[in-house]
């Protein structure tokens, strides 16, 4: 019942408060405040009861007083109702203890006074025990009293003087006291304060209650109704009000199990406490007798280099570098400097500790775990075994090996040579402006023509019945009558070289500007005057046509002349780059034009490009066609020789890097499987170059001989080479104005 009333009261009060000071109060302070209020209320109640008990007549007045003082402005009616409600409580209270009223009233008043003084203190000190009310007189502090058991004093006062203990009364005294004073049972000795305290009735009552197992205060309600202090509706988030789980209150099963396990282990001696585990490195027989396991798939580290003589503590004297050498090491770069400088000690006892020992070992460690390891195939072979096995040169004979005759007579470097078809005579053109005819066998100079300017090229007519020599000098091409052969032939030659009118012949105007055919009486031949410098002249195999090359002639660089008709034609092909060399096919009507990079093959009848051969060299200097017509050799200015098999590919079949200077000329032998190159490094190479009629078989190339003998002049070496048409002999023309014949 009391609970209900207090509830009601509380709700009323809260309402009042709300109405009263809602404006200042923040909403959330409400629940905080309400318990305080409740407490106050309760205390108030207790006081009122006590006051009632003290003077039942003034109960109303006092109650009013208190209520007024506590909560000001509360309505009278409210207080009245309160008091009436409180009165209902009374009987419970009173019935429980009759002696309460008769207890000391002063203390009750003192209490009331205290209440009146401050609410705060009351809030802090909730218990009503006498200890709290009376300040302790002792200053022992928070130490056990046993310490003072044998002392005469207990603690110190404020001035530092000992506080003497009171004399303890002996048993007799106490007995007498108990006999004398009926209230003596109330007196209790307080050891702490060293005094005798008389228990009040209240206190005895409390003790009694406690002995009975009840709460010490009579007004303590062990079963209050639950009050929903928090109105959940106002919260944004749900208020957790789930009850604490059971597991929080009961001991863990698993911990228990673990403990049991450990205990059992310890009991059984399996778990040994306070004993260090044995640290014993076990060594055992790891590898059995026949460990036939597989090989490691692992790259083993290379072994360190073994020391040489120079690392000895006492090396031979020649291993020790001289002073100058050691000084020269200092000028070297750090990397090039030798890591180890040999030293010599005359006796073993004078050898010091090696200061780099740890360092070198560390470097080795770094190498072992930081360096990538690659299994590299080190070619431990004799370098000579790299060279291809050449067939015995003796089996490839005959080929020119030895210089047999020198043809001397020119004053300048011999630029070009040419043999007659039978191989009896050889013509040579020189930079001193002369053309000479030599007898091959004897080296006799048959005839000499004096031309004003340096001869560029000489070419003997391939037809044996027409002993005509084509010579290019600057812008002119001369066709000279050599004057060999029988009378019939002479007559024919003269006929051919006879031009009726020295002016422009029956040519069209356009070609008149390029080439002018005219008669040259002094030399006894025909003169073709070109518009640009002519570099080479090439005869067609039949001896009627010949082509001339003017590198600077652009679209009209290559001209074809017909001797019998004295006609001149332009090659109807577009030139791709500067032309270097030209050649007629030995059997078919095919024409080869070589530019600096490529060789182009044209069909003259169909007038179209047949093939383009890519040399891949820096600059082509000359080309030669194999008598079979399917193979070409190309010499270049970087000393490389390319062999092309035209049936095979447009790429070279083989590139031979033979000379270290420009190749000046390449040449095939007409009948023997030989070819030769001449170069500015004063050598000529002779190769065996066999071409098989079987298309499946590749050409077979073997270098045979290096021919030396020419000396260098103005940085040029051998300028031309030609094979003898019938014998395996080679003519070479050098810049040292000598022509040499090499025979087998």
């Amino acid at each position: 019942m009391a609970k209900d009333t207090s509830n009601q009261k509380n709700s009323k009060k809260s309402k009042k408060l709300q109405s009263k000071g809602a404006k200042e109060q923040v909403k959330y302070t409400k629940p905080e405040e309400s318990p305080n209020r409740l407490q106050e209320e309760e205390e108030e109640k207790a006081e009122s009861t006590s006051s009632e008990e003290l003077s039942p007549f003034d109960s109303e007045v006092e109650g009013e007083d208190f209520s007024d003082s506590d909560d000001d402005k509360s309505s009278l009616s409210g207080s009245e109702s309160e008091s009436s409600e409180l009165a209902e409580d009374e009987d419970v209270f009173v019935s429980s203890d009759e002696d309460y009223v008769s207890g000391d009233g002063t203390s009750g008043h003192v209490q009331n006074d205290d209440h009146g003084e401050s609410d705060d203190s009351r809030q802090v000190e909730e218990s009503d025990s006498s200890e709290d009310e009376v300040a302790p007189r002792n200053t022992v502090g928070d130490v056990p009293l046993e310490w003072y058991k044998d002392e005469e004093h207990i603690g110190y006062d404020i001035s530092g003087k000992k506080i003497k203990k009171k004399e303890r009364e002996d048993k007799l005294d106490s007995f007498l006291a108990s006999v004398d004073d009926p209230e003596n049972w109330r007196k209790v000795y307080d050891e702490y304060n060293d005094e005798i305290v008389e228990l009040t009735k209240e206190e005895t009552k409390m003790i009694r209650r406690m002995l009975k197992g009840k709460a010490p205060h009579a007004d303590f309600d062990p079963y209050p109704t639950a009050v929903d202090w928090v109105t959940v509706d106002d919260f944004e988030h749900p208020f957790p009000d789930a009850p604490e789980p059971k597991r929080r209150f009961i001991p863990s099963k698993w911990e228990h199990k673990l403990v049991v396990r450990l205990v059992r282990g310890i009991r059984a001696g399996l778990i040994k406490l306070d004993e260090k585990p044995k640290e014993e490195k076990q060594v055992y027989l790891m590898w059995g007798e026949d460990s036939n396991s597989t090989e490691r798939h692992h790259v083993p580290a290379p072994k360190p280099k073994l020391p040489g003589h120079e690392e000895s503590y006492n090396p031979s004297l020649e291993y020790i570098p001289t002073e100058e050498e050691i000084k020269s090491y200092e000028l070297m770069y750090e990397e090039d400097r030798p890591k180890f400088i040999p030293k010599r000690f005359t006796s073993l006892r004078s050898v010091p500790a090696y200061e780099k020992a740890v360092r070198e070992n560390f470097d080795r460690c770094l190498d072992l775990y930081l360096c990538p390891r690659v299994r590299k195939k080190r070619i431990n072979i004799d370098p000579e075994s790299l060279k291809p096995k050449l067939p015995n040169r003796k089996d490839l004979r005959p080929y020119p090996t030895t210089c047999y005759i020198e043809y001397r007579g020119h004053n300048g470097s011999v630029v070009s040579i040419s043999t007659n078809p039978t191989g009896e005579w050889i013509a040579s053109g020189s930079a001193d402006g002369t053309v000479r005819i030599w007898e091959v066998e004897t080296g006799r100079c048959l005839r000499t023509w004096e031309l004003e300017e340096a001869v560029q090229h000489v070419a003997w007519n391939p037809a044996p019945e027409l002993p005509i020599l084509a010579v290019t000098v600057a812008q002119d091409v001369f066709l000279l009558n050599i004057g060999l052969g029988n009378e019939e032939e002479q007559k024919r030659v003269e006929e051919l070289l006879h031009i009726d009118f020295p002016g422009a012949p029956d040519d069209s105007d356009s070609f008149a500007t390029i080439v002018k055919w005219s008669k040259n009486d002094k030399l006894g031949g025909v003169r073709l005057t070109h518009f640009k410098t002519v570099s080479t002249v090439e005869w067609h195999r039949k001896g009627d046509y010949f082509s001339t090359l003017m590198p600077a002639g652009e679209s009209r660089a290559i001209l074809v002349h017909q001797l019998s008709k004295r006609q001149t034609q332009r090659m109807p092909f577009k030139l791709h780059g500067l032309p270097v060399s030209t050649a007629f096919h030995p059997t078919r009507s095919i024409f080869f034009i070589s530019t600096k990079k490529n060789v182009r093959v044209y069909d003259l009848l169909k007038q179209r490009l047949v093939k383009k051969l890519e040399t891949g060299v820096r600059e082509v200097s000359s080309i030669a066609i194999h008598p079979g017509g399917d193979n070409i050799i190309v010499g270049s200015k970087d000393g490389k020789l390319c062999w092309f098999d035209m049936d095979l590919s447009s790429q070279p079949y083989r590139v031979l890097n033979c000379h270290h200077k420009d190749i000046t000329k390449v040449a095939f032998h007409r009948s023997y499987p030989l070819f030769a190159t001449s170069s500015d490094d004063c050598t000529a190479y002779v190769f065996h170059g066999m071409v098989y009629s079987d298309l499946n078989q590749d050409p077979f190339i073997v270098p045979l001989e290096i021919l030396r003998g020419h000396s260098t002049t103005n940085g040029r070496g051998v300028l031309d080479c030609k094979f003898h048409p019938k014998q395996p002999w080679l003519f070479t023309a050098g810049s040292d104005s000598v022509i040499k014949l090499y025979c087998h």
Partner: protein
Amino acid sequence: MPKHYRPPGKKKEGNAAKYMTRSQAVKYLQVSLSVFRKLCILKGVFPREPKKKVKGGHQTYYHVKDIMFLKHEPILEKLREMRAYEKKVKKAMSKKNRDLAERLLSRKPTYTLDMLIRERYPRFVDALGDLDDCLSMIHLFAALPAIDREREKIEVNRIHNCRRLSHEWQAYISRTHKLRKTFISVKGIYYQAEVEGQKITWLSPHALQQVLPDDVDYNIMLTFLEFYETLLAFVNFKLYHSINIKYPPILDPRLEALAADLYALSRYFDANSRASEMELKLASVENGAKSKDAELEESELRLAQLQHQLPSNEPGALMHLMEDAEGKDEDDAETMECRNLFKNMKFFLGREVPRESLLFVIPAFGGVVSWEGEGAPFEESDQSITYQIVDRPTQGRKFLSRDYVQPQWVYDCINARIILPTDDYMVGRVPPPHLSPFVDNEKEGYIPEYAETIRRLQAAARKEVLPMPGMDIEDLADPQHLLAEGVIDRAEAIEAAEKKKKIAALQEQYHNELKLELQGANYSSVSNDAIQNATLNSEAVEASVPDLQQIAEDAANMSKVLMPRKKRKLYEAMQIGKGRQQAHVGLLRERKRKIDAAKGSK
């Protein structure tokens, strides 16, 4: 990342999938770089060189398989555990939880490396083949002082362990006479032994205070050492097992204290070999011995062993034992040769010579050795001593019955495998140059003078006859011999040239005759010229023939012309190497010449 785990879009093949960089690997394994390094060292994983470096040329690449190999290593887990343990200890310490810290410290996690050794060296031969670095390092650490710096710490017990292991190894080598070559260099003493067909070379530093540089990461070295210690222990076990000796050896503490470990070990061997014999006897007697008695027996054996060790203090006993050992096993010819080199010789070492090295080396070649100091098997005054090894300017008291030699004599004798005359190695003299036995002089192209002398002595010992010194040297030292391709080639060239000359002359004659015949009267006037020309030609022929070197070179060039570019470049590179070697040899010769000239002038 393994191939089958690759997320879509990542390469599954090629270098990008096959290799990963070091930082990728570290991230993948979730370890720190130092742990990764340790793992790599222990597992023997090394970087690779991919053909295409996907992540750039400055990175280090590892093969993915190697990284997976590391990932599945139990030691990786162990290392993580250790790291966690360290944290626990640190935490306990910083919380002043002394009890916990002490308890933790008593239970430090450890790992063993035996499985790794098994894995890296599946066969014993593999382990022997990889022993060079191991031995060098252990010998180095055996000579190092223990340090206790802030960061780096070399513990004393590890150094003691290294000493022990190195002595055990040396004792085995010495006992079984497997040492082949020795070389005193500035860096230390190199030894080469041959065990089971594997040539094992190691460097032992001079027994002096070693320098510890600051710019060296000792942690790396200690990690290597950790592995090597375990490896050598197992190798030693196997080796000791193979000669029926118990491992680890139990040494006489008195000798050990005197730092005569090797001698103590050799005595242990002797005792053990006897014990094993006894054991055999015992086994034969008590065929059905009960298991209960086994322990008792063992203790008996141990007693017997110790008893045997005691009397062998006398040198006679040792000698006797040596002979015993010889009789027993049959070894290859080289071992026999090594065993008998110092047979019946007694050495006494002075105080100033490197005792440890000589104690190792002399018994390895069958000699008996003692030293000045406590625990030595025999005294200096022993009359049967044949050689006393001293290294001091003068020797005060001399016994006439023995030769006094410098220590180098022993090493030179070993390398030459003959007993060299002691005159050059006498006390107070500067000994002849000490030459490396690891150099193939013939291949090098330069033979030092003393090597030649030794060869002569060797031949004399074998009762062979060598060609005269002057001839021999000249033949080899001929520069032309090196330049041209050998004597045979040169002879051929000369022959060819000669033939050419003859043929040319014959041809010339023939042609002249032919011409005369053919041309007859027509060209009669020419004939004079022709004769002149002929004479000229013969001169030209003369000029062209003698250049033999040219011909040889031409022959060499000729085949070079036909070589493909790749081979030609290789050939040229080889020639460069050859040239360098020749330059070195030339320099040596030049120096030698100068030295000789200086001597001559004096």
